[in-house]
């Protein structure tokens, strides 16, 4: 999209007005975004070099916060859990695709089924967390009873150091799968029917059809599904906070929760240390963000 030749021959006043106009339109939104989002990123990096309780003056400690991180057992637990979150969250993408394929039919009432399958994404993670806490609850939780009935053993998932993270991730996957499902359902709508028919005449079906004909056409949906799933995995905070508060013995902490705990918990406000943890999380996220931006940038160039 380019400006037409008219704007070149137009009077100078008109042109200068067109140079100023975008900035006037941008000013309020840009100012708020800079103050509340862009500048704070750098402020956090700055604060991570200080010892600060949020009230009294900051004390410069250089990289001491980062050095402390290296020997911090809880930091490693959180980091390890973040990696587990990220890896298992990826299951949401194929699972969402499977459900979308299952629902991509035109029978009576299918629209209602689609919306009901999407349901878990609409409710807040706090409610999802409470629902799953109830589902896992010892003695009367539905899943607890089911496992007891099937295997005879009593498993309190949220009280077990080795299972707790998986239990929370399962709760997180529920809405995440729903999200990926809706992305794929919309994508499947746009798949070119003639290509499918042509491939069918060539004898393609089942997995082969899916892999070679359908999936390539679903690439935009897959891209967005991957983006939102990575972001969702690294943003995980609500469920951990609601379901376990990081316990038992800190075994279900993730970086986002550990940061919050350090910076604002009853154990005292360690803003500098918290900021250092946030910087690490930000660095991990940045790897993915730059990847996304790079791809979008390339698409933008292609669109010109």
């Amino acid at each position, binding site marked *: 999209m380019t400006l037409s030749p*008219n704007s070149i021959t137009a009077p100078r006043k008109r042109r200068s007005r*067109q140079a100023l106009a*975008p900035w006037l*339109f*941008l000013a*309020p*939104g*840009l100012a*708020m*975004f800079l103050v*509340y*989002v*862009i500048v*704070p*990123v750098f402020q*956090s990096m700055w604060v991570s070099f200080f010892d600060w309780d*949020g009230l009294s003056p900051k004390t410069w400690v250089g990289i001491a916060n980062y050095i402390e991180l290296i020997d911090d057992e809880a930091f490693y637990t959180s980091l390890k859990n973040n990696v587990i979150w990220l890896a298992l969250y990826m299951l949401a993408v194929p699972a969402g695709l499977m459900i979308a394929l299952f629902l991509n*039919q*035109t*029978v009576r009432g*299918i629209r209602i*089924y689609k*919306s009901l*399958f999407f349901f878990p994404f*609409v*409710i*807040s*993670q*706090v*409610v999802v967390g*409470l*629902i799953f806490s*109830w*589902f896992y609850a010892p003695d*009367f939780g539905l899943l607890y009873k089911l496992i007891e009935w099937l295997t005879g053993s009593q498993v309190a998932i949220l009280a077990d150091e080795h299972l707790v993270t998986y239990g929370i991730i399962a709760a997180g996957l529920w809405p995440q799968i729903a999200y990926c499902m*809706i992305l794929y359902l*919309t994508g499947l709508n746009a*798949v070119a*029917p003639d290509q499918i028919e042509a491939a069918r005449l060539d004898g393609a079906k089942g997995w082969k*059809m*899916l892999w070679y004909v*359908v999936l390539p056409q679903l690439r935009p*949906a897959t*891209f*967005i599904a991957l983006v939102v799933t990575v972001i969702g995995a*690294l*943003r995980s*905070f*609500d469920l951990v906070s*609601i379901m376990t508060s990081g316990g038992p013995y800190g075994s279900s902490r993730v970086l*986002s929760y550990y940061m*919050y705990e350090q*910076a*604002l918990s009853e154990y005292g406000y360690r803003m500098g240390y*918290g900021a250092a943890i946030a910087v690490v999380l*930000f660095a991990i*996220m940045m790897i993915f*963000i730059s990847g*996304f*931006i790079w791809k979008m940038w390339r698409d933008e160039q292609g669109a010109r």
Partner: protein
Amino acid sequence: MFPRPIQTLSPTAQWAYKIALPVMLILWLLPLIGVAMTSVRPSSDLAAGNYFGWPSALAFDNYITVFKNTALDKYLLNSFKVTIPTVIGAVGLSCLTGFALAVYKFKANLLLFFMFVAGNFVPFQILMVPVRDLTVHLGLYNTISGLALFHIAFQTGFCTLFMRNFIKALPFDLIEVARVEGVSEWQIFRHVVMPLMRPAIAALSVLIFTFIWNDYFWAMVLTTGADTQPITAGLNSLNGQWIAAWHLVSAGSILAALPPVIMFFAMQRHFIAGLTLGAVK
């Protein structure tokens, strides 16, 4: 169409599909169904160990109890007070920024656009300490406006991404023609582009409503107590008070989930258009 339409398969397969649909749905929503049933279960049932059977009576008074004995109504009201201004603010600001980035060609254009996109993806924790500090200094800590201001600013990132792409897909000739006619830039925005943005505004409004209603982290960081906290943070503290009173926890959860659910069903098409970022058509 993929997979092959079920109508082209044998009658047995069609029957199997018709049975599989509701069965899968019930399995999928099992935790939710359980909670919904618990929310209307009399507490005597829970005491007697009747957790999964049919409730002995429908105890809608669980809902009344929740309202009477707790500040749930306050929390719900606070949620509306945070969410509605945020929707108006973020969508309004991003109409302007989106228009600027979609229509004008200037050097910093793409850079600014990607700044909005990237900022939208950052982990909240990297913003937490400075934003909390800023809010305290503005005297807005533990106020609804403090929380809403941050939400407006942050959501402007996502909304700008959405609006810019939407406006970019509009026919540019319209703007050109208006310019040749000598219509001012503001008038072009107001009378040429704005009327065409209605679907985008609707999509973003439902989406932002849901996002903000469901926000928990910022509610915990910027507010404390029943006078300012929205329902998500409220549920967390009520959950602490109601240890093992699952019929009350469930009723509270259902109430908290209701507004975004109603929003979703009322404006489903817009909601989904918003979620897919308009990128998957």
